[in-house]
């Protein structure tokens, strides 16, 4: 037979190596395309910037500029490039916003990818405090603290709302901060306790104000509804331990963070080995022992919205108090409508119960703000971009516009500041003029995530339900926010070491906390638990935290 012919292209080993090297070089060059080290003179990079830009004035670029922006695409509010929001901003400011869409489901990962690859848009919004830390060493984002003097609105409201100390705490290891946050005139815990108010009032005569009152109330409810386990969490303990911990001036659940807290000697110590943490755990242990706290709700995994079974238990009247937000309260209320019937129940979000340390709630906090891609520092529009973002994020008129739309087109504002949507416009998310025709959020783009950032109290209350306004009032009038936690920014090596140590320590804490609460471990083993943490490297971890803390104090006072 004939020998089959060879294929015309049979690459040799050498040609393949060459091809691979060429491909690698292309990638490497593409990845290292940006240069650094150029001096930034923001005053001279002023194309489009206003000369007389001050706080509370309308920003309008002196010539058209473009600002690219990362836009997180919320599934229930799919972004439209044709939204009136963008056109209106352009009319007001001469700035055209161009969007890079990222899906909400994996927004953080995509954002990191874009920043790491040097491909992020100029404006990187939806950044919460501390989220700038991973990008500091790479120089991929702008050190905003160097440029806030060009942001008069930001400075004004930091001062007016007494936030200067908190801003100082944003500093990273190099003494600069790389994100500017959304400022809140007032802040209240989003998650607290949602209760069946009618049942509590009927059985105990009042809404519980302290953990002791709640404990007594739960006992009485248990007597009346013997099949019930009246208290639940639904967030694997995360929400409950978080809002409860402040009543003991400790930390827990979602708020555990790095686990550090200032000890009596002024040095940082670890919350899980403090007596306050132990006392808090003992209360929950008692609640579980007495059948008042739902064990399942502390362990059942949830998809982020709280284990659905808690809503079912509320509906079935086997649970009467649970962790949640005002949204959870509405969810429980809807579930009860199906079983108990509308009008036959009352569900309310109440301030976190007070405890031995007093009527404390979490420290005041910021809402999400933004970072800037460091490429902007090379742009001739740098100053104009800073002015535009200062206006967009911190100017009261801009905040009102982002929330409500165009004044006298979409909404009216009375003399007393009351805001009402005009006929034909609705904000269905907040059940305002629901179903009126044009939803200012989904149809026009207002009230989307940029509107959530900086808020005065009046603006926050303008769209909140009366129940939530009452909750804000209650919290502000009866509770005191804790002092901010001391900052302790670390350098890259310290961060790596700390995270290596923190993970096993935190795992031990989580496991032991649940074991103690569930009664699977005797409280007499508390000292053994502390020894376990020491064996897991707690002293070294605390040393790292204290070193970083001391350095920060030395540098910043």
């Amino acid at each position, binding site marked *: *037979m004939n*020998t*089959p012919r*060879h*294929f015309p292209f*049979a*690459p040799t*080993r050498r040609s*393949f190596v060459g091809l691979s090297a060429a*491909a690698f070089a*292309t*990638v490497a060059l*593409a*990845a290292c395309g940006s240069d650094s080290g150029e001096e930034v003179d923001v005053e001279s990079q002023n194309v489009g910037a206003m000369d007389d830009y001050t706080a509370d004035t309308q920003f309008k670029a002196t010539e058209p500029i473009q600002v690219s922006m990362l836009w997180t*695409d*919320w*599934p*229930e509010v*799919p*972004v439209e490039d044709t939204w009136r929001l963008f056109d209106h901003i352009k009319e007001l400011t001469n700035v055209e916003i161009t969007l890079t*869409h*990222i*899906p*909400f*489901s*994996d927004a953080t990962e*995509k954002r990191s*990818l874009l920043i*790491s*690859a040097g*491909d992020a848009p100029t404006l990187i919004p939806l950044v919460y405090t501390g989220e700038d830390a991973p990008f500091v060493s790479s120089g991929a984002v702008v050190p905003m603290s160097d440029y806030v003097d060009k942001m008069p609105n930001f400075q004004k409201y930091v001062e007016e709302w007494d936030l200067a100390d908190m801003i100082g705490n944003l500093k990273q290891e190099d003494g600069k901060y790389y994100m500017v946050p959304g400022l809140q005139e007032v802040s209240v815990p*989003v*998650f607290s306790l949602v209760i069946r108010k009618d049942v509590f009032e009927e059985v105990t005569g009042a809404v519980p104000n302290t953990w002791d009152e709640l404990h007594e109330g739960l006992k009485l409810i248990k007597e009346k509804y013997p099949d019930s386990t009246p208290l639940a969490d639904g967030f694997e303990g995360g929400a409950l331990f978080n809002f409860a911990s402040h009543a003991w001036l400790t930390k827990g659940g979602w708020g555990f963070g790095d686990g550090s807290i200032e000890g009596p000697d002024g040095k940082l110590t670890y919350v899980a080995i403090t007596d306050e943490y132990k006392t808090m755990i003992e209360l929950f242990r008692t609640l579980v022992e007495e059948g008042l706290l739902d064990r399942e709700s502390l362990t059942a995994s949830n*998809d*982020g*919205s*709280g284990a*659905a*079974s808690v*809503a*079912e238990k509320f*509906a079935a009247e086997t649970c009467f108090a649970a962790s949640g*937000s*005002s*949204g*959870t309260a*509405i*969810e429980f209320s*809807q*579930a009860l*409508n*199906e*079983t108990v019937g509308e009008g036959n129940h009352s569900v309310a979000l109440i301030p976190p119960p007070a405890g031995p340390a007093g009527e404390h709630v979490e420290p005041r906090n910021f809402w999400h703000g933004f970072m800037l891609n460091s490429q902007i520092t090379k742009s001739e529009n740098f100053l104009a971009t800073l002015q535009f973002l200062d206006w967009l994020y911190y100017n009261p008129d801009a905040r009102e516009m982002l929330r409500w739309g165009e004044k006298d087109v979409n909404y009216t504002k009375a003399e007393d500041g009351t805001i009402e949507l005009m006929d034909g416009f609705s904000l269905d*998310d*907040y*059940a*305002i003029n629901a179903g009126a025709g044009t939803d200012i959020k989904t149809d026009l783009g207002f009230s989307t995530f940029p509107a959530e950032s900086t808020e005065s109290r009046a603006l926050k209350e303008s769209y*909140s*339900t009366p129940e*939530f306004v009452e909750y804000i009032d209650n919290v502000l009038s009866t509770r005191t926010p804790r002092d901010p936690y001391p900052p302790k920014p670390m350098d890259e090596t310290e961060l790596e070491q700390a995270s290596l140590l923190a993970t096993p320590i935190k795992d031990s804490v989580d496991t032991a906390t649940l074991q103690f609460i569930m009664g699977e471990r005797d409280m007499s083993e508390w000292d053994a638990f502390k020894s376990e943490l020491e064996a897991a490297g707690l002293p070294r971890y605390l040393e790292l935290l204290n070193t970083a803390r001391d350095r920060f104090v030395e540098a910043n006072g």
Partner: protein
Amino acid sequence: MAPDAPRKNPKNAVAPRTSRIKDSTSYKVFTVVNMTVLVLMCAVMLYPFIMLLAQSFSSAGAINAGKVNLFPVGFNLDTYKVVANNDNFWRAYGNTVIYTVIGTTIAMVLTTTYAYVLSKKHLKGRGLLIGIAVFTMFFNGGIVPNYVLISSLGMKNTMWAVILPPALSVFNLLVMKAFFENLPTELEEAAHIDGLSWFGIFFRIVLPLSKAVIATMVLFYSVQYWNDWFAAFLYLDKTDLFPVTLFLRNLIAGASTAASEGAAASGGNVDAINANIQSVTMILILIPILCVYPFVQRYFVSGIMLGSVKG
């Protein structure tokens, strides 16, 4: 049979023997246990799907109250209407269909041709070609370098970013290579003697004999493209280009976090609506695969088995 041969009259055909070898007791027990286990497994597999189907026809309130199990509660078609009128959903659906059809076509061309080349043992550099392919099973550049590569090649925000990177699955390639190696070489030699070129042999002899493995690979690739969301997530920045899986992923993530965001949830019933919409969207996304699978399934087992055993 010759054309003029008398046909057998079915009526006169010898009746099959009715007597059978009697099954042993242990065999009967085995069969019963086997059937029971299989039925149970089938039920376990089907239950979530039936529940999903029931949820898709149920009211949001009933879903939230945990009342929906195997049958719809508060039967309604409203959610189907809502989803059917959602332009974004159909745009994403259309994108997925395009990515799947074009992607599967390109993947099949690449895989069959590459596998056929690799099946020729006399090919110089065959080891290197196999090595290059297999190398990628164990090592890759990582997400950021891949992102930079796709971006530098100008494929970002085009459908090629979704279609080309996964267009050659090494696992599929090796299965197909093994299949081609099992084809009788005599057939190709005979075709060669009759004057067919390599391409002629490939298209007129090899491919027609490989329907089973091709059907299997088409199924593998089309399911892969249909389900893929990660490439789109990495390389696409415009919602207009998102496939329906990314749309669904976003929807589920949105529903599960909506209630945990105080601001988002201090009014309205966003998450309640989503509980319904999720189910309907999932059902609509599943339908094409459910429709296609039974037709390809008969090739599936034989195709994968043919490739797995080397003679």
